[in-house]
């Protein structure tokens, strides 16, 4: 499903001393890490650590105050979110953001359309290119839907789907853009154990199909099972970066989590 041509293990996404400031608040503070081709990278950290802000910055929603981000060797500075998506970087949202009144197929086709170039004139005069692109978009939407194991009929409106199918549809919509890298923002949130097992399989399947994954997740069981590498953020700073077993043993990480737990209780 990937359109990437970088070798396995090459750097796909790199953040270099990224700092994001809102007014006086520094949400992301000098964070650097890399995601490599063919791996599942988890980004974890207590609430408020700035994980979603990192996603929003990578996808171009926020502009980093300092530092730079590059994807497949290309700096992302100055690109709009839709341009970044078209480079092969797709995402899902923490609180599902489907297009509720569009059907399952249409939602996925919005992703598939990321590969199309024709616009108004193409559509008005049904140019050969437009027909070709329309068909390609439909095909990649259908492929992505079957890849994630969508059960619901294609004509059903997204608002009427079960929770699990909504999650699946969001992932399908992102996969339909034919990304090299997919960012999953808490995909397991609200899932029961059985659904989590399905999700775990799906994420591994995505990676094995050649799409690299960055995952924000609170479920440590899931993270430890499937991640190739883990980045830990706390208060906007990166406090650890390594293999799951290294991170698990890292004293700074333990303090961050215990501290957070103390503060919460």
């Amino acid at each position, binding site marked *: 499903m990937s359109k990437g041509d970088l070798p396995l293990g090459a750097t796909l996404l790199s953040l270099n001393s990224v700092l994001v400031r809102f007014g006086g608040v520094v949400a992301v503070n000098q964070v650097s890490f890399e995601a490599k081709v063919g791996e599942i990278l988890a980004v974890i950290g207590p609430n408020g650590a700035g994980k979603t802000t990192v996603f929003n910055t990578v996808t171009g*929603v926020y502009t980093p105050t300092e530092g730079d981000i590059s994807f497949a060797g290309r700096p992302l500075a100055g690109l709009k*979110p839709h341009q970044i998506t078209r480079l092969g970087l*797709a995402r899902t949202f923490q609180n599902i953001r489907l297009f509720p*009144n*569009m059907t399952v197929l249409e939602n996925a*086709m919005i992703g598939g359309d990321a590969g199309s170039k024709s616009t108004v004139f193409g*559509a008005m005069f049904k140019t050969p290119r437009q027909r070709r692109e329309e068909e390609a978009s439909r095909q990649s939407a259908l492929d992505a839907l079957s890849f994630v194991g969508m059960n619901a009929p294609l004509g059903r409106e997204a608002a009427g789907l079960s929770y699990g199918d909504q999650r699946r549809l969001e992932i399908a919509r992102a996969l339909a853009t034919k990304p090299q890298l997919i960012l999953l*923002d808490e995909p397991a949130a609200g899932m029961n154990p059985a659904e989590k097992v399905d999700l775990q399989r799906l994420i591994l399947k995505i990676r094995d199909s050649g799409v690299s994954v960055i995952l924000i997740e609170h479920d440590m069981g899931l993270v430890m099972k499937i991640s190739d590498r883990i980045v830990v953020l706390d208060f906007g700073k990166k406090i650890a970066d390594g293999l799951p077993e290294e991170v698990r043993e890292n004293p700074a990480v333990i303090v961050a989590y215990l501290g957070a737990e103390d503060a919460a209780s």
Partner: protein
Amino acid sequence: MSMSTSGITHRYRSAKAPIQKANDNLRLRWRNLPFPLRVLGYVVLIALAMLLPAQSIGNIMAPQSDWPTILFYPIGSYILLALGLNVVVGLAGMLDLGYVAFFAIGGYTMAVLGVNYNWSFWEILPVGIAAAALSGVILGAPTLRLRGDYLAIVTLGFGEIIQRVVNNLTVTGGPTGISGIPHPPSVGTLSFLTYGVLDPRPYYYLEVVMIALVLFFSIRLENSRVGRGWVALREDEDAAEIMGVPTFTFKIWAFAIGASVGGLSGVVYAAKVIAITPENYPLLLSVLILVCVVLGGSGNRAGVILGAFLVAWLPERFRGLANYRILFFGAMLVIMMIFRPGGLLPARRRASEFAHGIGGGQPLGGEIQSGQFEDDEDEKE
């Protein structure tokens, strides 16, 4: 740790009204008809449109007015304008309160070029459409960063500026407007294609052709990447942008297409009425066209046509009540928004802009980038 378990089933209500269901079924059945039958359907529709100006129908539909005349204006013109505004409001979900400006730009293009430069209708038509589309882009490019009601107010201001500018300029004839606008050239000696002063039917037929063309292209647009993109950005602009929809470009397109349809109807209208003045282009007209779109069911072409027909026809049919039409339509807008925000024939893909979309559920403050993703922040939990 995370507690954000609320799925969209909680957020999006999807109760369907019976009319809407019937509408959906009809649409589905139509789509599944074999091709020849659909062609036959269109032929029947065209025949009906051709027969519509007949006196016997007029006796029932509008006994107190000249039926062919009101078929051209207001009925036909409102339908054309409403179809154009529907692209902006219904599909792309942007509230344009200055739509009459494009109707005026088309009209004055026809008047100025026709009277001062002796251009013919068919030469002016593309210019009028292009002029309106261009002003749509010029207005749209800077304003479309704004959301929701700010955009509405800017477009309202634009409509007022255009009206006052034509009222003050000499080239547009000031408050007295321009008269002696040429008619379209007649085609052969066919009576129904002879464009003169007396018979309104040729103009009506011209309008029917324009409506058919607009419908044809808007259906194609809706069933393309552009149409999907419009609906997506209406439902969740940020998500659409992040999923690869060039939201800004598509919004400009929606504006330009809506504007060009407005310009088209302006040219056609001015080519019949001989004289136009700034009073032909009041804010009220923008609002009435908005009523057409909202009443029928914004986003749904059949609904919009029905809405435009009702808004144009009811005051003509019930002339005694014509004085009360604005009162009535004003009250109706409020009632519709309270009880049936989707319109009489709601679009299947609609509702969300009335439920929570376009800046609705989200804060308006700041308007542009900042803060729109706050809800996603872990901090909020």
